[in-house]
């Protein structure tokens, strides 16, 4: 899947994550801001990266603002943003 335009998904509410995706010529990159960055930053980045891989995306800059989302929410929000970005 090739990202062709910016898109976003999620909210800034508690237990959610706000995801913005942009086309990126340098491959997949993540910029993460989280209320639990120290404890779970690496895990959140891994979930985002794995989701991009599952969706076969190779050119996304993902800007994520996390408010304590569980993995199922992170995966859902990334998938929604990506699918909006390829429409």
């Amino acid at each position, binding site marked *: 899947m090739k990202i062709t335009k910016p898109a976003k998904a999620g909210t800034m509410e508690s*237990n959610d994550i706000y995801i913005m995706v942009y086309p990126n010529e340098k491959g997949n990159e993540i910029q993460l801001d989280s209320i639990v960055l120290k404890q779970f930053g690496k895990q959140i980045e891994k979930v985002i990266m794995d989701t991009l891989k599952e969706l076969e995306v190779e050119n996304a800059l993902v800007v994520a603002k996390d408010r304590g989302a569980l993995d199922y929410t992170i995966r859902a929000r990334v998938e929604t943003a990506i699918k909006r970005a390829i429409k």
Partner: protein
Amino acid sequence: MRRSMLYIPGNNPSMIQNAPVLGADSIILDLEDSVSVDEKDSARFLVRNALLELDFNGCEKVVRINSLNTELGYEDIDVIARVKPDALLVPKATKDAIEEIDELISTIEREEGFKLGSIKLIPLIETAFGVEDVFNIVKSSKRVAAVLLGAEDLTADMEVKRTKEGEEIFYARSRIVSACKALKVDAIDTPFTDINDFEGLKRDCQRAKLIGMTGKAAVNPRQIDIINEVFSPSMEDIEWAKRVIAAYDEAQREGKGVFSLDGKMVDAPVLARAKNVLEKAEAIGLIKG
């Protein structure tokens, strides 16, 4: 057992992940009215992932899909049925819609290797046409496990004012109950929408139970305890039922066909009611089997 069915907005992770511990028998993850048109895709993926990954603590998992009048309903079915919810709640249900959804789900169940018929359907009756056709709607698919009355849309369709007393929905409630009893499915009452009026909620539950409703939908977690209490057999009911069964057993031993308890004759319908009370009490853990 569906005493209480709690609506949860399908695009709210916080509410979704807290829902299983609130005490409701069923959780309705809503993709319809509580989700804005712009967020339908987002809610659909969130609910799908929640069904895949969260522990729902034994609650029945129901998803309210969008109507088949738009493409949204078809997309909901294709994504949600593949992760095997316990049931789909079908808004503004008609016989045609239930039959079509039954076929769509059957195809998905075959493709995914699920047992055929394992995903149930709950028609939401919220139009005058739906009320008049409720018997045929229930009969149109073996998947139908319950009917839920949606009085807000129904009264809008009927062009009448919705009141707390509910006289305007008495006919709809009665007709739904009658169809549900005839076809042996649950009859779930409409939500009580004043979330701060607990006395009113209790009276509304009692009115619904009196005419045969078996449970009620909730729009706020604070409504669950009252709903569960009203739609559970009382200790008085359980004691009465136990005495009926004991009297029946004794009559059987003595070879009596007919017997009485407290001066009243006990016949087959009374015996059936007593057994029903004990089955319900056992199902919710009030007594041991």
